[in-house]
């Protein structure tokens, strides 16, 4: 394996290139190599810098008084006992924050009800864990002691603890502005004549699937250190975020400051997975308190806060009907979707983020020509939701893949054939789907065929039968999906958000010694951008990636950008870097042309040298070009050198990775436990900048998807009280729960990015729940049982088996007529 400090370029693995559309860049000297990550050396030696590591002398520690009831009027707050503790500096309530505006995520569309998320609750709390007061003290221990002494008098109000309750007639309203508790209700597609299609279809199948509430649970929780810099008049907020500029915008809006008066710094980030791509109240609070008290303020979320008050996700319900012709081709899809969005709308993507994505992306990789969908976001007295890796795709894919399995059974075609007949074929790209999304190109059918082959699908019935003969219940499940990644401003604009993300901007600057600094607004939190971005720039500039360093996570330092989420960084950030690097390479060639008395077009940048193509002896070191451009610019004609820098932006059209996941499970009929035996991924994300990192993203995603399928759930009691407040109750998978993942790649470079790469950060998470649930149900079908909910709890499996009779299998997908 070559590392970033040299060594020959190596061809990696056996990645079949399915097709290279015109205009895409071929893999280069560094692009495509499994370069070891430059981040690793400092992270492995404890030299990383995470926000919690910062604690300047004089720091005040902030602890929150949070609501312990789900719905109540705040009648009084008595902080006198807390304030009497020596070392307590202040207790801040909404009264002290007068003038600090709430967070207000808005979709400018009539189907959306805008609601405010106050920084601190003033007169009303809407979920357990809602912050009411902030205690500031000289130590974190003291701040927690004092927080317990703050007395809040609640006038308890009825709480709605589930979407079903919230939609019931006469249910208490979470927000006065939404009496029926529906915050968003969209029907973005309704093909005329759909009912007729269903009435005359050869086969109609239906599924009803629900998914439990979960959370990203990054190992580093949320954390902020805020200060007021009297020299610059700035609030300086260090925070663990995926989106530094978006945090800056939110803080500036809430505090009524210009954006340049807020500096957001995010050093190393210990995971985010979407939870940190929205702005938390606590981030605004820390900034507001630092400005108010003119002190450095530190807040470190503890795990209980993280699991009860941090953004949650994915509590959804799908009812799907599919109409199929006699050959198993889907004629129509009819969907009703419900998302429990919790008590508030997150900023900036709003509580519509799951609702809209579920409706818009449900058709997935299939040729769905007629479609009707209604998708609703229902407010409950629970913690607000926000994006979590894949957002609604894991659930939408789960529902579609349950439908496909049902169709395979009802038509007699089986799981592979029915999918194959409905997947978009390679000859159909670019393919505009029923929702108007234009898929670039991929290997939808090929990935299915390869995954089925790797799993031995054709021999599966015999394998399964012989296991059952030994009393073992085994099952095989598949999931096909397309992963829309890197939305640009055009796509985000269609959502009608009031701030529209999508582009990225990069500056690539060569210093006088010939080393390069890359600056962009994405923010790596485990994805290894310092490595992959260097690979992209190195190929363009003809230098070793070890001479390229990334600067990120400081709004004072990097161009305005949108951060890292939605699998956008290698497309948007990488695209901007590729463009800026190409510009800088052009400048270098011009300087070299002047020094070598050659034509710029005849020059190439290779291995640290600018040389005449075909005549490498006529050359000049790139470092010498850099020195000349800065320190001897008088030797160059006007307009050349005098600094070496280029800036470019990239606003992607959107790229579409695809994959098929396959799982083999063994289900214990006595304990209800599910053991994963095999897990196979065949994915296609176009050109892989660094295949090692791609595999790591897939593996991490699959583990999270398996967690959602089998282990993780945030439970609430009927009063809205969360009961999963620790890692004893909220089960993040361990190494003992997961098999070795078998990850295979196909490669269809996209013509839509400078590198041919597609985004791929979420795919692992997207496919896993469906593959696992389908596998479990394939096993359970042998005893006539079926489960249509994740996580698949052992008790659910036992109950399903107990309820089953082999003559009348429940949930076989056939619609009663």
């Amino acid at each position, binding site marked *: 394996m070559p590392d970033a400090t040299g060594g020959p370029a190596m061809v990696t693995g056996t990645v079949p290139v399915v097709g290279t559309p015109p205009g895409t860049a071929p893999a280069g000297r560094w692009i495509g190599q499994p370069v070891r*990550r430059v981040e690793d050396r400092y992270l492995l030696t404890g030299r990383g810098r995470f926000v*919690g590591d910062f604690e300047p002398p004089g720091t005040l520690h902030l602890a929150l008084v949070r609501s312990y009831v789900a719905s109540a009027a705040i009648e009084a707050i008595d902080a006198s006992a807390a304030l009497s503790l020596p070392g307590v500096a202040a207790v801040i309530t909404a009264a002290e924050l007068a003038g600090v505006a709430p967070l207000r995520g808005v979709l400018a569309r009539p189907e959306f009800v805008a609601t405010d998320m106050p920084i601190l609750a003033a007169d009303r709390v809407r979920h357990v864990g809602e912050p009411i007061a902030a205690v500031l003290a000289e130590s974190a221990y003291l701040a927690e002691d004092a927080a317990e002494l703050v007395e809040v008098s609640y006038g308890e109000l009825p709480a709605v603890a589930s979407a079903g309750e919230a939609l019931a007639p006469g249910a208490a309203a979470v927000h006065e502005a939404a009496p029926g508790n529906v915050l968003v209700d969209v029907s973005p597609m309704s093909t005329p004549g759909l009912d007729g299609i269903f009435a005359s279809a050869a086969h109609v199948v239906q599924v009803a699937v629900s998914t439990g509430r979960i959370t990203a649970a990054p190992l580093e929780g949320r954390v902020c250190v805020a200060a007021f810099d009297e020299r610059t008049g700035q609030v300086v907020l260090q925070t663990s975020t995926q989106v530094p500029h978006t945090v800056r915008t939110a803080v500036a809006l809430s505090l009524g400051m210009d954006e340049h008066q807020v500096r957001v710094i995010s050093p190393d980030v210990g995971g985010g997975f979407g939870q940190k791509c929205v702005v938390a109240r606590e981030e605004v609070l820390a900034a507001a308190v630092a400005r108010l008290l003119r002190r450095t303020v530190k807040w470190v979320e503890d795990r209980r806060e993280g699991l009860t008050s941090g953004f949650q996700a994915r509590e959804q319900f799908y009812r799907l009907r599919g109409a199929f012709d006699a050959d198993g081709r889907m004629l129509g899809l009819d969907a009703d979707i419900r998302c429990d969005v919790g008590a508030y709308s997150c900023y900036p993507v709003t509580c519509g983020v799951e609702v809209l994505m579920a409706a818009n992306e449900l058709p997935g990789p299939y040729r769905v020509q007629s479609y009707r969908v209604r998708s609703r976001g229902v407010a409950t007295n629970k913690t607000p939701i926000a994006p979590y890796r894949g957002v609604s795709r894991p659930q939408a894919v789960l529902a579609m893949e349950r439908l496909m399995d049902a169709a395979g059974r009802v038509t007699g075609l089986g799981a592979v054939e029915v999918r194959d007949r409905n997947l978009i074929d390679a000859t159909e790209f670019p393919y505009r789907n029923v929702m108007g999304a234009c898929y670039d190109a991929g290997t939808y059918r090929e990935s299915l065929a390869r995954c089925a082959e790797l799993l031995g699908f054709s021999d599966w019935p015999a394998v399964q039968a012989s296991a059952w003969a030994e009393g073992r219940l085994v099952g095989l499940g598949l999931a096909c999906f397309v992963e829309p990644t890197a939305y640009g401003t055009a796509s985000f604009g269609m959502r009608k958000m009031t701030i529209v993300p999508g582009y990225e901007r990069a500056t690539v600057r060569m210093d006088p010694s010939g080393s390069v600094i890359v600056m962009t607004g994405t923010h790596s939190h485990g994805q290894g951008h310092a490595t992959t971005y260097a690979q992209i720039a190195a190929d363009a500039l003809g230098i070793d990636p070890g001479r390229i360093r990334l600067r990120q996570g400081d709004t004072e330092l990097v161009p305005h950008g949108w951060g890292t989420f939605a699998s956008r960084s290698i497309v948007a950030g990488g695209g901007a870097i590729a463009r800026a690097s190409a510009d800088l390479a052009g400048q270098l060639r011009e300087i070299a042309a002047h020094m070598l008395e050659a034509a710029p077009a005849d020059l190439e940048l290779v291995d640290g040298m600018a040389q005449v193509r075909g005549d490498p002896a006529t050359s000049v070191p790139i470092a010498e070009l850099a020195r000349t451009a800065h320190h001897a610019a008088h030797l160059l004609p006007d307009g050349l050198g005098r600094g070496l820098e280029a800036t470019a932006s990239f606003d992607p059209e959107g790229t579409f990775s695809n994959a098929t996941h396959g799982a083999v499970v063994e289900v214990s009929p006595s304990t209800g436990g599910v053991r994963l035996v095999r897990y196979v991924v065949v994915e296609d994300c176009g050109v892989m900048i660094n295949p*090692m990192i791609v595999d790591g993203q897939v593996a991490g995603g699959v583990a999270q998807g398996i967690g959602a399928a089998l282990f993780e759930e945030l439970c609430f009691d009927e009063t809205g009280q969360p009961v999963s407040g620790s890692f004893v109750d909220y089960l993040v998978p361990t190494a003992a729960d997961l098999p070795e993942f078998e990850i295979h790649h196909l490669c269809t470079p996209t013509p839509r990015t400078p590198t041919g790469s597609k985004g791929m950060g979420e795919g692992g998470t997207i496919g896993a729940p469906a593959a696992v649930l389908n596998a479990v149900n394939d096993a359970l079908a042998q005893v006539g049982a079926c489960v249509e909910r994740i996580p698949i709890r052992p008790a659910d499996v036992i109950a399903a088996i107990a309820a089953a009779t082999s003559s009348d299998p429940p949930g076989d997908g056939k619609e009663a007529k």
Partner: protein
Amino acid sequence: MTDAHSIRITVNGTEHELAVEPRRTLADVLRHDLAYTGTHLGCEHGICGACTVLVDGLPARSCLMFGVQADGRSVETVEALGTPEELGPLQQAFTDHHGLQCGFCTPGFLMLITAFLRETPSPTDEEIREVVASNLCRCTGYQGILRAVRAAADDGAGS
């Protein structure tokens, strides 16, 4: 509650004498009193293992130990395993096999496995999986971690 106790602990071979509140965790003593910020806190209730350090050679959750309990004892943290310029063999295996992404849980895994390989220099794959299952990682799905430990063991990192 705030009466400070004087303690003496050796961290990575350096002796420190300091006064700490009895309730102050070893993790906070290491991170904030002594600036060994390589030790991270992921859950503060003993499950995730990000805060794992070695106390007299044995892995301990430093979030579940008080600093005063480390009085007179020897603590090893991630800072002792190598430097960015010269990684230790286990650290090298982690970078070779992509055993880390965000890097937050990594110090805890490194300390846990360091003790494990000292005790079990030639582990089976099952033994490796069992010990790796002691800690939580949210990024990697453990795939790279397991490969790294296998490679480190095969290269004799524990001997």
